[in-house]
């Protein structure tokens, strides 16, 4: 849910990175954090287990610049991907303005991808959102690994709605900013429409 503040001339939006465990959601945020100028970002918070698995969420506040005198700020969140953290995932989707689905391109993770998309659809619906209408982009991550599905296959399985889709290698940044820009743009366009 966006927050428009006329007093401080700010627009704040919330973007959530969703996907199965170990698909690279946190890595996306870490790359964005590492490559963003200090004045455009806040502190990145990771609520993680001792083994660096996301326990509750990662959080990264970003400033994208101004539109007609309004500072645009995006709050990026990740959800914990592991199946049993579903209660936490639901909470993080509250008030979401846009979703990035990070898919793991490896063939053996296809079922986990599908399960996660379905879980996203159900959890969004519980909050009153429709996955078919919300600003949404898909990222096919881990394109550098050997045993990966083709983009056509991933598209057919994960992106039947044909939303913007990007190939990515999150640790090196391939596709990371393209994905972020695409979802941010969709969110702003939705705001303009009065969504």
């Amino acid at each position, binding site marked *: *849910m*966006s*927050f*428009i*503040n*006329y*007093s*401080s001339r700010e*627009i*704040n939006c*919330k973007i959530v990175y969703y996907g199965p465990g170990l698909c690279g959601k946190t890595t996306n945020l870490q790359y964005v954090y590492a490559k963003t100028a200090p004045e455009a970002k*806040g*502190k990145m*918070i990771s*609520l993680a287990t001792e083994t660096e698995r996301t326990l*509750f*969420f990662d*959080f990264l*506040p970003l400033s*994208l*610049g*101004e*539109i*007609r005198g*309004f500072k*645009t700020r995006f*709050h990026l969140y990740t959800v914990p991907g592991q199946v049993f953290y579903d*209660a*936490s995932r*639901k*909470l*993080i989707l*509250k*008030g979401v*303005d846009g979703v990035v689905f990070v898919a793991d391109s490896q063939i053996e993770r296809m079922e986990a991808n599908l399960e996660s998309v379905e879980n996203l659809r159900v959890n969004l619906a519980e909050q*009153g*959102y429709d996955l078919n*209408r*919300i600003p949404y982009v898909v990222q096919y991550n881990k394109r550098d690994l050997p045993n990966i599905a083709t983009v056509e296959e991933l598209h057919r399985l994960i992106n039947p709605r044909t939303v913007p889709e990007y190939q990515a290698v999150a640790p090196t940044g391939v596709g990371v900013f393209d994905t972020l*820009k695409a979802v*941010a*743009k969709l969110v*702003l*366009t*939705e*705001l*303009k*429409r*009065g*969504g």
Partner: protein
Amino acid sequence: MNPGLVMYEEEFRQISGICDRLTRDANAKVVFLVDKNGQLIAASGQSQNLDTTSLASLTAGNVAAMGGLAKLIGEKEFPNQFHEGERESLHMSIVAGRVVLVVIFDAKSSLGLVRLRVKKAGEELSRIFDHLAKKQAMPGAQSPFAEITDDDIDNLFSG
């Protein structure tokens, strides 16, 4: 989709005034008001050295997690929470069902005083947020963002 929160100058001034007064009346170090989704609405007191953005996000995460726990045991929510530290303590209170009033205080104040003052401030804030909700729901209250163009959005990403 749920409409977002829109804050106008007038209401912002009123809200800031209430937070300033609460800071004084409760002998608090910092008072801040956070949207349940983690957006900081107002901060008062010694907030300069605090990372208020992170505070806002973690407050919302905490309130959401406690809300989830409340539902599991058959409660609607836990409207008030208190966390006691060695030197500083933190009191959180849900206002008007959608924002969280957070007070950080030390030994110069007490939980009793904070609770008393928060209750009064919470009632005043509730009235303002109810008014804001009505203002936003009024017919003709179009998206305040409607006048921007596709070019404006494109320009943001051209750099």
